[in-house]
């Protein structure tokens, strides 16, 4: 059935339909929020905004479209919540501007209303971003302009279809949406309003099952292309030991890990294999042990891309280098500088058990004692594990210049024992920051990065 004009009664019914369809899909719209802040409860905010407008304009339903929309826009503004609510209210304010003085609306009027609504919406936002509700509004309005129809049902049908398509395109325009794999929440809410209006115009139920289903399709998760095949500028390869280190190195951004176990040093081949698995122009490699540097170098010579070896001599140095790494730097030299300057500031402390009696650097060691080493120099021995850590730090000549101590506890150390140690150390060295991190390494009870 062709409809060539709308009176304010019908318009009011359609607006109510828009509200009901939005309400029906409210939580689905909320779920599209990229950030979990109430500022971004888009669905709820738009429902409040539109609900206020529908209620406010109720008594004007017989007063003609111009008068009805004027009240409607005022109601929308007064109940506007959040960004999407404010933008929605301005869209209808544009409607009201363009409908001023009109009793009824034809298809050409509707197209003008949308154009005016888009202009108002854009001007309400200081830095309009594409890929948002604004884009969905604009695309729909432009579609309305080009489709010279006199039938309002056809116009609404075409416009709503364009909105669905535009909504699907939002992740291509706004990277944050693509990253989260969603379409824009404000745009989705706006589509609901038009789906509902459209349904009423066609004599359908605006909160029927089919609209919920259709909306689900429109707002379905967006599958993003696999970027893994793209070659990166920089890649990072590191040797590590222990599940804790494995976890942290991965989190910091190491692309390929080479696992080293005591007595099983990584081969040149394992380095080459790791290098090959990373698709980057330039690789930074952290051997994290003086004995692995040579293998890393050999592997680099066998490899046809640029490889830079950061000669880290312990996991503590490796962790420190990685923590200060910034792969967004312009040149590889800058990346290397950042890491080397971090490493130059690290003293590596190690606590492990002596495997034989000895006397070294004035320290008497009995088999089974816990011994403390700083940068491979034996500083202390103690029958108690935690006491060995304390005396290691106390005997470090430059401890007064150090500020941050990260203690990686090994596979055999329990958390209670760490808690006690942390308390003792904080009391003894009140100026310093102590952090305890599970390294999960074998053999060394504690690996300590002192910076």
């Amino acid at each position, binding site marked *: 059935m062709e409809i060539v004009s709308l009176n304010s009664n019908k318009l009011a019914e359609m607006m109510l339909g828009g509200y009901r369809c939005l309400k029906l899909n409210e939580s689905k719209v909320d779920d599209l929020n*990229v*950030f*979990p*802040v*109430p*500022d*971004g409860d888009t669905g709820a905010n738009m429902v409040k905004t539109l609900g206020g407008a529908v209620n406010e304009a109720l008594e004007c339903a017989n007063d003609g479209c111009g008068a009805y929309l004027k009240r409607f826009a005022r109601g929308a*503004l*007064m*109940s*506007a*919540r*959040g*960004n999407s*609510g*404010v933008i929605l*209210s*301005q869209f209808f304010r544009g409607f009201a501007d363009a409908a001023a003085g009109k009793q009824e609306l034809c298809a050409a009027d509707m197209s003008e209303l949308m154009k005016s609504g888009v202009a108002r919406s854009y001007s*309400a*936002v*200081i*830095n309009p971003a594409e890929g948002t509700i604004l884009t969905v509004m604009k695309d729909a309005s432009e579609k309305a302009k080009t489709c010279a129809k006199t039938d309002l049902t056809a116009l609404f049908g075409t416009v709503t279809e364009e909105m669905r398509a535009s909504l699907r395109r939002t992740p291509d325009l706004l990277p944050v949406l693509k990253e989260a794999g969603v379409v824009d929440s404000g745009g989705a809410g706006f589509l609901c309003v038009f789906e509902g209006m459209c349904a009423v115009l066609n004599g359908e139920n605006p909160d029927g099952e089919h609209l919920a289903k259709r909306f689900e399709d429109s707002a379905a998760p967006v599958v993003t292309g696999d970027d893994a095949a793209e070659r990166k500028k920089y890649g990072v390869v590191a040797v590590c030991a222990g599940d804790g280190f494995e976890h*942290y190195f991965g*989190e*910091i*951004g190491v692309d390929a890990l080479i696992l080293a176990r005591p007595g099983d040093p990584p081969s040149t081949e394992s380095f080459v294999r790791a290098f090959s698995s990373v698709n980057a122009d330039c690789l930074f490699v952290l051997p994290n042990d003086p004995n692995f540097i040579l293998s890393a170098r050999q592997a680099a010579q066998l490899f046809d891309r640029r490889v830079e070896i950061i000669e880290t001599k312990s996991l503590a140095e490796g962790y*420190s280098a990685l*923590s*200060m*790494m*910034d*792969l*967004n730097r312009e040149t590889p030299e800058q990346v290397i500088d950042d890491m080397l300057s*971090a490493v130059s*500031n690290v003293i590596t402390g190690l606590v492990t058990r002596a495997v034989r009696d000895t006397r070294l650097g004035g320290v008497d060691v009995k088999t089974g004692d816990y011994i403390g080493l700083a940068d491979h120099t034996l500083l202390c021995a103690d029958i108690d594990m935690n006491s060995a850590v304390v005396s290691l730090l106390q005997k470090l000549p430059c401890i007064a210049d150090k*500020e*941050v101590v*990260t203690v990686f506890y090994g596979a055999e150390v329990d958390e209670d024992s760490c808690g006690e140690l942390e308390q003792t150390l904080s009391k003894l060295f009140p*100026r310093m*920051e102590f*952090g305890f*991190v599970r390294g999960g390494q074998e053999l060394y009870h504690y690996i300590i990065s002192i*910076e």
Partner: protein
Amino acid sequence: MKKFAILIDSTGDLPREMRERYLIDYVAMGYVVDGIEYQASLDWRSHTPREFYNFMRDGKRITTVQVHVDTYTERFSEYLSAGRDVVYIACSSALSGSYNTSRVVAESLKETYPDNTVYCVDSLISSLGQGSLAIAAASMRDEGKSAAETAEWLVANRLKVNQFGTVESLEYLRAAGRVTATSAFFGNLFGVKPIVISDALGQNFAVKKVKGALTAKKDMAQSISEIVENPEQQTLYISHADDVAAAEQFRDEILAANNFKDVYMSYIGPIVGASVGPGTIISFCVGSEVTVEGHA
């Protein structure tokens, strides 16, 4: 001609004593704890700073709500109906949608109050940076400047307010979607302190990272020396998220390198606090114009 009113919002972080001294009012945002919305009072009416930041220390998620349209309408109307113009200095539009909303409301009030105007200024900063702009506006008002002149001055000078701050963890800012930083800044790395500035677009931008809280303070004090203009004639502002000792240490480091006229220290209010997290310290001073634009 009646003197114009100066308003900030809940991110301006000026406590009552300062608002009373400079005759500055504010419009309230809201925060939500356990599903209950509270007014974001700069006088901590609902929770003390300790209670508030302990929620966060205990892992409770606090979210924020921008200024409602009716709140703006009501508060602006109070002054307009008394025949006064309003200069509203808003939280950076890169951090809150409030500024956008305020412009729409100000526009809509023109019809009812044709003789007076609300000038909405996007401060492009928050916390005491925003607050210090309001204090500067108050002294212009004392000199007899009009609302229009003051608003124009604010827009011309807002980027001269330089922010240097550091947070305990960037995760709060990230969860709130209120920081621009490359991946190099994320990952929970013990001892790594990001230095966060407010960039030319009004975004929080992580510019560099350093090792250790003391090193971070010294580094920021050094940065201040490089950009500050006429420190002997200006107040240094420091705000903190419930860590007085760290703020005092920060102050001492800055004063050791810079000769400020005086220092004003205060708590980071609930809205900025909910985004930055406990332990955050931020300094603000006037210096060379900020031109950096951050990219993620």
